[in-house]
Structures are given as structure tokens and as C-alpha cells.
């Protein structure tokens, strides 16, 4: 279940589609811990989530998504 944005930490995240570069820290969805997978799926649906995902990471899913501070 998705949590309201910032419920736990007061911080928020959003996803932005990007083209990855050589400097990016890229992880596949399968390499995320369960809480981060859950947060990613919530964010992708446009719903709020816990701030478990580290900002700056690029996540490979059906596209590449950079995790950014909202």
C-alpha cells in the first residue's frame, strides 16, 4: 500500500524519465530491496510513498527513471 507523501520523513520523491549516462548509478528493479520496489511502483503510479529510494539513483524498469527530490 502506498503511503501519503512525506508521512514518515517529511521528504518526497518523484520519478523522471531519463537517458542514462556513464556517470549514473543505475540499478535494475530486481536489485532494489522490497521497500524500495514498493515505493518505486507507488511513485510510478503517481501516488505518494515512503522516501526509501535514494535520490539520484537511476532505476531501470520499463524505461529509465531517475529518483529526484520533489
Amino acid at each position: 500500500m502506498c503511503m501519503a507523501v512525506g508521512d514518515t520523513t517529511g521528504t518526497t520523491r518523484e520519478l523522471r524519465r531519463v537517458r542514462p549516462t556513464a556517470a549514473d548509478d543505475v540499478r535494475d528493479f530486481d536489485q532494489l530491496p522490497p521497500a524500495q520496489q514498493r515505493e518505486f511502483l507507488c511513485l510510478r503510479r503517481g501516488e505518494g510513498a515512503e522516501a526509501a529510494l535514494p535520490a539520484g539513483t537511476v532505476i531501470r524498469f520499463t524505461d529509465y527513471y531517475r529518483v529526484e527530490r520533489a
Partner: protein
Amino acid sequence: MSQSYVIIGDGIAGSSAAETIREEAPDADVAVLTDEGEALYNRILIKEHAKGKLPEAPISIHEEDWYDERDVDLELNTFVTDVDVDAHEVHTHEGDVYGYDKLLVAAGGTPSSLASFGVENADAEGIHHFWTFQDARRIREHAEAAETGVVVGAGLLGIDFAATCGAQDVDAKYLMRGNRWWRYALSLEGAEIIHDGLREVGVEPVFDSGAERFEVDDDGHLEAVVDPSGERFEAEFAGVAIGLDFNVEFLDDTPVETSNDGIEVDEYMQTDVEDVYAAGDITRFYDTILGEKAQNGSWGSAKEQGQVAAKNMVADEAAETFRWVSSYSITHFDVPFLSFGHPTEGEEYVEKRYSETEYRRVALKDGKVVGGVLIGNLAPQQKLKRCIREELPLGDDAERLLEEDIDLDSLAPAQ
């Protein structure tokens, strides 16, 4: 006197074991031997390099410095030729001998070739197998230049080849035995969503097909693939993904129990030979959830197995049990796909297609969930994996696993 640990293989299982041993035994001697020419990389992401979507740099995980900093002796381009379990020695192709107190075999596998099935020209130039970063580089280079291609192998690895062809604008046919992709885990209803995804990226599935023989030109380059019905498909490029041959030859003269399925280990990653352990793709391990032997090739499972093996090696006893519910996603298409647990090990299945792009199939055995497949909506994976992990008895409630929002609290009443 410090203990000596030798690890064969520098994939995620071997590398995570080395890291764990260093943490648990700061004074130990640790050597990692690998036949590859580069240190640990992100095996999940190499397909993205082949597709032309990701540069090389983010795929590397460890530079050689990483091993130096941890006082781990990393030996690249090193082929293990045999192991003497009585003398506790590992021998390499260069005649080097590594003595060990504990040995971990995490050597993974090598893609199977259709040549072993007698298929003509199965190792011709232009026919690729996909396992290492080097493979990915070759595949990328060839796919960028090729106009026509064929993919053989209707499973989780074959679809990476198909996606590569799609991303590299190769006009490709995906030859499958039977009437659908991954027929051991999916019904036709679910597989059709994947077939649609393939077509959307420009790859045409061909059913009841396969590679009967490959045709080559005068220079030995692939020219075409002919299927069992005699249909001929022009192809400059071919990707073959029909499984793995596990790298166990160097154990042939030892009592370590091996087979075509890999190395037999218990739930502690220990073989039946004292001081010899195994981890990663190469293991056929005792799955404490299934209550029987199982295999798994996912990244998370291999990493966990490496850590569990390392802890038990250092403790010199069965200190840590491997108990894990794996998952593996395919995200080549707009619609995500995820398999979890053991989706092909069910005795019965419940499934539902919710829409053009959403599908769920859950495999059950003895009234408990053992695995499944999600397409489109991956959110239920956490609850379904919890059902597996906690071995929840479902009684007559299995169909309720198909509800949009699974209510675990109302499922599985106490027995």
C-alpha cells in the same frame, strides 16, 4: 593461524561471499578465481548494453581496487582445472595451486549450444549466446549492423535476445516450440500479452517452430535458419538461449555430487564433501519452503546464497540457513512482467486476465503458494511472496489470490 578461503567465480554469489568472509574473518586469506577478464559487473544490466540503451560504465560494480582494499586476492583469466578435496587444493590452467581450508564453488554456467543436440552449423559465426559482459559487447556490435535475425529459446533469457533485436531495429523472428512463450509458467492467455509486447518492438513470434539447422555462406557466416517444418528464415544474426551447462567439469574427479543440474547442496550451501560449499546459479539446493531440492538463477538469490555460504564457512558449522523467495522481472516492454518463487512447480494454478495488459497466475502445491507470474500490475508481489515465505495454508481460498487487492488477513485462518 589464519584460515584460507578460495572462491571459484566472481559473479554476485562469489563476490558477496568474499565480502562476507572478509567481514566475518578479518584475518583470513581470501582468494577469488575467475575465468573472466573483468571483476564483478551487473549481470542484470548487460542486456541493456546489448540493446544499446546503457553505456558500459554503470554496469561495472567492482574495480580491481575493491579487492585490494579488502585484501582479497582476485585472479582474473584463471581457469580451474581440478580440485583435490583430500589435499584441499585447487589447481589452475597455469599450474598454480591454491590451498584452502574452505572452498566455495560459484562458477555459474555456460550457455548451452544447439551443437550438443546435433544441430548443423550451430556454432557458426553470427550465432550468439548470452551470459557475460563480453557476450553483450559482441551482441551489441553485431546487432547494430545486422538487418535480419532469429531468436531461439522461449524462456527468460531468450526474450533478452528478442528485446535486443527490437531495440537495435533487427527484423527478427522469435522461433518457439509450442504455441507460446515460456509455456511452463504461462497459459496462452498470459503469454499473449508478451507476444503483443514482442510485436510492438518489431519481433515476430513464430510458434511450433525452432532451429532444425543453420545455413551459412562460403565464409561460414550465418545466412538462414531452417525450422523443423522446413520454413527458412533469413538471418545474419541469431541468438540462442536454450539453457545453461553448469561449470562443474573441474569437480569430475572428486566425490562432490554434481549432475546436469549443477552441484547438490543442502540449505546451508554445503556439499556432501567436507569443507566444500557452492552458491549461485550452479546449485541445486534444499529449499526449506518447498521441502525439496530446487534451483534458482536470480540475482537476489545468488547474492543471498553467497552470504549464507560465507557465514557457514567461517563459522565452520550450519549457522545460517538459506531461505529465500526470489523474483525476476522482465521490463523490455511497456507492460512489466514479474515471476516469483517457483512458478513452474505448482500442482494446481489459479489465474485471471484482468485486461489487455494485466494478468496474474499463482502456482500452488499442497494448498500453499509456491510461485507465480504477474503481468502489468506488480503490486501484489509482496503479499504473494509473503504467502510463500510464511507457507500460508489457503484451504479453499486460492481463488481469492486473484482479487484486485489481496486481503491476507482474511485468508488462511489458523489451522
